[in-house]
């Protein structure tokens, strides 16, 4: 039994479930941080949260508003410099799971966080790469959390900031990227996973109350559905309560609106 919940809550809970206990997770601010902390507070108490600010093993009591909040440093096992976090920990191959968001993604889970429109004369200048190009290449696995819409799920990226499966098939392996790449895209409507050979994203689990037409209507390419497409289990009462408690504590601490999320990688 679960109480009523929002689509954002469904997305966050679905993302949190992806994180296995004990995994070392490179976390960006916003939805990824919320999902990773929800996982830590529910089924994955030994998940290790690594923030690109250098906090390793952070156990924040409230959600950080920035990637380098003081609480991350205070609750971490250790805090290292920014060069070290990227050199020894990410590039060093010590990260099991990287969480990423994006302004645009394509059917092969390539990501754009740089510009909408041409690079030299952009319609919208986005924040840029941050850690994403190297998270997407060096983390052993990547999870992408993003709200689904035709503006976001595009036929063709305006700019490839970070590699997913490139042109699909074995293109990623041929480019010799160290990590496996995206293993799932979690949205407010469904979960998509790369097809085993083509590597095109296909819907593998549909959130409660969502139908295939809605998903297709929020995707600019002709989205495929896996043969055995599951129904996502709704958030449990416990998941919802832990998530809401976390967001309430965060709001009390920051005076922050809980939806405040930047596209920081």
């Amino acid at each position, binding site marked *: 039994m679960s109480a009523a919940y929002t689509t954002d809550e469904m997305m966050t809970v679905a993302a949190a479930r992806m994180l296995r206990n004990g995994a070392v997770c490179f976390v960006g*601010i916003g939805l990824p941080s919320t999902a990773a902390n929800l996982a830590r507070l529910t089924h994955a108490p030994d998940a290790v949260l690594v923030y*690109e*600010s*250098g*906090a390793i093993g952070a156990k924040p009591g409230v959600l*950080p*508003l*920035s*990637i*380098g*909040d*003081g609480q*991350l*440093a205070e609750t971490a096992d250790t*805090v*290292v*410099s*920014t*060069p070290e976090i*990227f*050199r020894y920990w*990410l*590039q060093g191959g010590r990260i099991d799971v990287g969480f990423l968001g994006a302004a645009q993604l394509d059917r092969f889970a*390539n990501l754009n966080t*740089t510009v909408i429109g041409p*690079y*030299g004369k*952009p*319609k*919208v*200048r*986005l*924040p*840029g*790469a*941050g*850690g*994403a*190009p*190297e998270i997407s*290449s060096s983390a052993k696995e990547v999870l992408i959390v993003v709200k689904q819409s035709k503006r976001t799920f595009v036929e063709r990226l305006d*700019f*490839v*900031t*970070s*590699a997913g499966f*490139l042109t699909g098939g074995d293109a*990623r392996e041929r*480019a*010799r*990227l*160290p990590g496996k790449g995206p293993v799932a895209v979690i949205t407010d409507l469904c979960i998509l996973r790369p097809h085993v050979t083509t590597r095109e994203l296909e819907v593998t689990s549909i959130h409660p109350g969502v139908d295939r037409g809605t998903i297709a209507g929020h995707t600019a390419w002709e989205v495929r559905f896996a043969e055995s497409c599951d129904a996502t289990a709704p958030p449990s009462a416990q998941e919802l309560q832990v998530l809401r408690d976390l967001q309430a504590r965060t709001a009390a601490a*920051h*005076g*922050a609106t809980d939806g*405040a*999320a*930047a596209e*920081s*990688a």
Partner: protein
Amino acid sequence: MAEWLSLAEAIAAHVRDGDTVAMEGFTHLIPFAAGHEIIRQKRRNLALIRMTPDLIYDQLIGAGCARKLTFSWGGNPGVGSLHRFRDAVEHDWPAPLELEERSHSDLANAYVAGASNLPFAVLRGYSGSDLPRVNERIRSVTCPFTGEVLAATPAVRPDVTVIHAQKADEKGNVLLWGVLGVQKEAVLAAQRAIVTVEERVRTLDAPPNACVLPSWTVTAVCEVPRGATPSYAHGYYERDNAFYRAWDGISRERERFRAWTEEHIVHTRDFNEYLRVQNDPGIQVAYR
């Protein structure tokens, strides 16, 4: 040996028009007071470098101090866009802004190369990314042992680096702790370094392997309490999240930004007066 100066003196002496300037601090210890003083002293044509431009560079860009920005992530963390940065890139206001865009890993490595007196750094990066197509200074190098091709990035060597730290002692030895970012590397990569600190103390009492910058690596050190606000100084004060959110409104339109900058920066004498005008909760009673 570092010289103790007022912030106004330090900026006047060591930040020059046209300089390449790195102001670092990864969400923590961002040198806002120094940024304001650069605006107040009307520096022009600066080539700014910073991994996460943040509000401090939004202010400098909007105020017309910059001709170029080298960066890896330009947003208002937890809030959204940097409107002055976007206006410069999208509409050349107040002036065109040349971008040299990198990834975090690249810029962090580039500072390391600078501190190490190497002309370039090697990283496993950018595979499949379009960034090397728009930045011809992201190149490659071949491993002479394995034949593997890796990304190469030129070292960052600023004319002057500006950081904020928690403490400095009488001699000018500097201590920082908590989220360290790339500050040590940014100082060691630079020709000159200005450090603002929360406190001037007799002795640092640092743990054995703390992040200490010896006095002889620093050009000028300035006591500027709360000099990192609205960023934070671990052990001193918290991040002013409300200001980060308020900035979204202040900076969205050119006129409001201009009025705010005039009132809070151009027409204040120094950072203490800014704190008073800003009604900052940490402003010392003595200055009220």
